[in-house]
């Protein structure tokens, strides 16, 4: 386990070089971030570490490979551009915050349905359940998540992506206690839904 110690300039460059030579080197996120803040090439290990999970998260929310690729690209572009300003407790939580915002932008940019206008809610925010229902109907996970509330679905999506509780709280701008409550209710609901499925 590496400890979080300030790095000297040469040490920073050396470690950045090591990370470049061995992308699978098990440096922790925060060390890699510090290196990438100095040398952009050191962002590669972070990218390789998270491109799969971020793509999976975006796919889960958007329901199409094309949209997920677009969102993944935007997520990493925004992350790299914002990296000099990075000052968070968790890089993973920070990255998923960006990814979530990108997917929300995607929902907002979708063509509005007549129903949106009828209700006078042209900017009503994300409606991922709609995308979920329109997406690959064979995905059992997506079908189950579509039956949760917005809050519950967002928490479970991040939970399944491997994001930890305090990070989920950061991503969603909620307290850890609220996330625990939502997560508990979400999985209670999913338990019921799974039980109903098995009874059919």
């Amino acid at each position: 386990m590496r400890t979080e110690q300030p790095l000297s300039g040469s040490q920073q460059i050396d470690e950045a070089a090591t990370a470049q030579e061995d992308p699978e080197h098990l440096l922790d996120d925060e060390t890699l971030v510090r290196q990438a803040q100095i040398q952009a090439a050191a962002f590669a290990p972070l990218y390789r570490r998270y491109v799969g999970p971020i793509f999976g998260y975006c796919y889960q929310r958007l329901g199409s490979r094309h949209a997920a690729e677009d969102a993944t690209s935007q997520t990493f572009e925004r992350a790299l551009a914002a990296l000099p300003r990075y000052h968070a407790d968790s890089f993973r939580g920070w990255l998923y915050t960006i990814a979530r915002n990108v997917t929300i932008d995607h929902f907002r940019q979708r063509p509005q349905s007549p129903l949106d206008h009828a209700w006078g809610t042209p900017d009503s925010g994300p409606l991922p359940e709609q995308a979920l229902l329109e997406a690959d109907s064979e995905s059992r996970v997506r079908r189950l998540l579509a039956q949760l509330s917005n809050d519950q679905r967002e928490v479970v999506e991040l939970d399944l992506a491997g994001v930890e509780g305090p990070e989920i709280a950061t991503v969603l701008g909620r307290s850890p206690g609220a996330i625990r409550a939502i997560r508990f209710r979400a999985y209670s609901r999913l338990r019921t839904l799974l039980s109903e499925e098995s009874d059919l």
Partner: protein
Amino acid sequence: MSDHLTEHNDIAETIATMRRMYASERVSPDPAFSRELERRLLHTSNAALPVGPVRLPQRGSAAHNRSASIDRSPVIGRFQWLGLLVLIGIVAASSIWFVGRENGEQRTLESPERSASLLWSLPSDDTAQPEGFYVAATNDVIVRLKSAGNPGFIEAFQAETGERLWQRDIWASGMGASLGAQWGTSIAIDRERIYVPVSPETVQALDIATGEQLWSTALSGSGLSIQIQGDNLFVWHWDNTLTVLDARSGDVIWSTGVLASPDVMMKGPFIAETAVLMIVAPGELRAYNADTGEVLWNYVDDFGTFNATMASSFDERGETLYLQWTGSTSESNVFTRTLIAMDASSGTLIWRTSFESDGNFGLAADFNRVYAVDARMEDQIGTPTTMEEVRGRVYAYDRTSGELVWQSEPGPMRVDLVLSEGGVLTSFGFGYSMAVIDTTTQQARCSIAVQDLNLYSNERVMAGERMIMLQQDGTLIAIDPVASCAG
């Protein structure tokens, strides 16, 4: 296996099932896409990036500070008259409580009596002046404050073993707890820091791991009691000022004068995640935005004589406050002897139920239930009683609807409540015994004799599943209520 454990196992199995399904359905990015994106990212960003990080403005800086203006108009902000009329109609029907009792399933507190299973005991080093002790806890750390006989001291212990982590002298004011309200404490604690008033005007934050001082903030005013909620540290001055500090830095976020009269100083603030409620004057309840100090709503009515306490909310948005109001029947009003659920940010009443407390109150809440107690003489309601004559009950309400779910038989005690995260509710009879109730199965596990313990009435905290009790002479005692029931 208990129902409680079964439920948790079911949830764990559900999580595992969902993860298996997610893994099996998970879609990976096309390798060509991944390579191309990496090339594009690193090709367009191959110049050295500015050395960072660039710090964002700190909350609590001048740009973020503001004082709330006080709306003195006698208005009922968003607490709707219509809601009140409905409420009064409900009161007139007088049916909530009794319907609840008919529908509620009675559970008896009669259960085997056990002796307390002692985990560890920590006498105080200071036997010369054994008074002025306070206790606070996280799941992992216990903190004991000695404020009397300044300089007093503060010390931290491992919750599991009782091993002392550190100790330091401190000039603690020790004034807050004399307020007697749930809010009025001389020490506040979270996972990282300990907050303690060190003089009538100054609050200090200490590192919970080392005891080192992190910040010290001097405030105008005198007599401080404190409470932490998230990153907001609420400081109540006895000279009628409410100040909110950034718990991380000690910076003042906002401060406001509240014209509370002495007889209402002990009633609040009541804090939700988004709003803080103050009884700002007799009959006047006001809600502030917890982060900005903005007045959200103001309610003015003739409350009469009342006390109130609250339980921290665990609802999804952290906005619901549960307030228990007591008072004498001779001065009854719409709030007298009621338990209400209120949306703190809007003042909207969610539900209300009444009970018959003669002044004893206590609340606790978990995901599903709100637990409340009352205590009275069984045969002579409203008549002054001696402690031995008081009979206490525990009630569990559905937190969403307010429906009475179960109630205990009256126990030989005046009770208050401590709820653990694991769902164990201890109903504590002052000087008599402690009932241990499994909130999932709604069954009393046992009662634990505590007659031999010389306890402060209100100084019990949970550290995980351990109950930490403070004796009059400063000795800390840790017991495991569930293990005690197992004998």
